[in-house]
């Protein structure tokens, strides 16, 4: 009887899982098939039907000739804008987070827990709250509408998270390791460089994925602090979808949305395995 029950339970669980997976994947499927149809087929055909002829013209158009407002250069220039913003922002915030985490976890000083608490508080500050003061500050620094300014905003906003990640990873590493290294003659930076960084791969992967996804997908900072030549891809996507010359080109919209999402998908596919591992790994066994 119990084995019957077990099988029944299993069947139920799998049915539910498959059902929810389908619901979750349906939009992606619709996006993908729509992006491969031509506009006639979309108007006349079924939303979920497979395309009659696979047609990449919508992708090409989305990439280099679709209009985003008055410009008609496709997403390509904005894609590279995003790359120029994301790469330095991710690297800088991750490196600062690693240093902060190392200090907060292994070199406790008076008030270090207070400082950590205050940093944590930063995780809960909503974007909207800092919009105006940050705009003022950037203008005052002469960084308004620049890539550098945008990178700076993302770095500052990201440090709270990256510090939290690294601090929690390093706090599980026994303090005796630092003590041993100090007696061995290693200083603050030598210990960080020679001992802590080499065992930080999992948490680096987690932090990089997290920061990359956050910054690449950011829309609000992008739309507020960027200028005409520095808009990230999310802003361009929004403009593209909202600009209609003649009829609405759903296939181009879909292709553009997928292009905008591809890099984060790619990062996740390449490093997702380490992401889960890094989140669950407490410390390095030794």
């Amino acid at each position, binding site marked *: 009887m119990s084995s019957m029950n077990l099988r029944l339970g299993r069947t139920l669980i799998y049915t539910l899982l498959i059902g929810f997976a389908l619901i979750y994947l349906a939009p992606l499927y619709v996006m993908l098939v729509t992006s491969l149809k031509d506009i006639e087929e979309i108007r006349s055909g079924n939303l979920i039907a497979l395309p009659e002829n696979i047609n990449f013209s919508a992708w090409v158009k989305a990439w280099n000739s679709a209009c985003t407002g008055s410009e008609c250069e496709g997403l390509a220039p904005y894609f590279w804008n995003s790359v120029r913003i994301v790469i330095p922002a991710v690297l800088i915030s991750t490196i600062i987070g690693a240093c902060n985490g190392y200090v907060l976890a292994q070199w406790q000083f008076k008030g270090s827990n207070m400082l950590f608490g205050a940093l944590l508080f930063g995780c809960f500050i909503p974007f909207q709250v800092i919009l105006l003061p940050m705009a003022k500050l950037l203008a005052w620094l002469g960084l308004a509408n620049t890539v550098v300014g945008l990178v700076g905003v993302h770095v500052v906003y990201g440090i709270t998270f990256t510090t939290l990640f690294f601090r929690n990873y390093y706090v599980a590493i*026994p303090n*005796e390791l630092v003590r*041993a290294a*100090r007696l*061995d*003659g290693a200083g603050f930076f030598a210990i960080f460089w*020679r001992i802590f960084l080499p*065992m930080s791969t999992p948490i680096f992967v987690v932090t990089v994925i997290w920061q990359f996804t956050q910054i690449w997908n950011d829309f609000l900072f992008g739309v507020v602090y960027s200028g005409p030549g520095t808009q990230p891809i999310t802003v361009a996507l929004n403009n593209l979808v909202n600009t209609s010359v003649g009829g609405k080109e759903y296939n181009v919209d879909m292709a553009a949305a997928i292009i905008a999402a591809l890099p984060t998908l790619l990062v996740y596919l390449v490093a997702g395995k380490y992401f889960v591992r890094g989140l669950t790994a407490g410390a390095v*066994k030794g």
Partner: protein
Amino acid sequence: MGAITIQELTKSYGETQVLKGIDLAINDGEFLILVGPSGCGKSTLMNCIAGLEDITSGELFIGDDNVTNVNPKDRDIAMVFQSYALYPTMTVERNIRFGLEMRKYPKAEIDSTVKDVAKLLQIEHLLDRKPSQLSGGQRQRVAMGRALARSPRVFLFDEPLSNLDAKLRVEMRTEIKKLHKRLGTTIVYVTHDQVEAMTLADRIAVMKDGVVQQFGTPYEIYNDPANRFVADFMGSPAMNFIECTVKDGNVIIESGGQHHEVKVPSTQALKSSGLDTVVLGLRPEMITEPKPHSDSGYISQMSLNVLVTEPTGPDTLAFGEWNGQEVQARLSPEVGVKAETEGKVEIQVDTGKAVLFDPKTGARI
């Protein structure tokens, strides 16, 4: 060279004082053991010697150098940690090299040192492995190798054997002692295991609540304890403490319904203390079956009602009662079996090395 002098050292964390004025003079080449129950401050004291904890007041000398405010890396000491603290991403060889590289030794010298140390500790075949691929005993060896490589003036061992299983612990204990004989370097060694303390030390400092209770050779600590705490802490099975009334400089023991007036060595001190009752400290091996040739002048014979026996192999511990308090005797296995079946045994008590304590203060009389 490797002598250590500690003068009136105190250490406080905020309001709590954990070391309350430590004075110790450790000779060059001596094997000193700091022993005591957990929370007695022994590890803190070691960390103060290493420089990993700041000293609140007092002074610390290594050799002739005042190192009170010297950076740990410049004190010329090496430490073996309880958790071994091997660098997990480095191979065994790199672990051993690390300290030498940090001190910018020439490469050829590092190579030959690593070779020598690996040979000495028989870890040559492990040099390419990562710490996670080693067993507990092997990690212990590597941790010692890392300390040895620098040939410092002083070695510090912080409970190095407590993570090993019982058999390996005894093996490594012997090995550490051999190593000390061979190198002749000063060692300060922290443990809570009184057997380790007795077997390894040249001298032992017994600590409690941040105070050194007694500082002496294992023989002195065992046979001539300064107070009841030291007597109780050192020795396994533990010393018997029997509260007795005093009569004419002798103590009264009631056993098996009969009262015995027992002679103790410190008669004069006992008389002049003016105490009516006293705590008699007797190690279990002083209470045995009657032996033919023992005559220290302090032998008494009596019978003991045995409640339970615990055979340990070489001898059997018998638990009885004196003055209504539990007492352990150490019998031969044959007599032990008889005592268990009959519930009663004839014993002799040798009070020649008995020690007496003030029942209120625990101070030695």
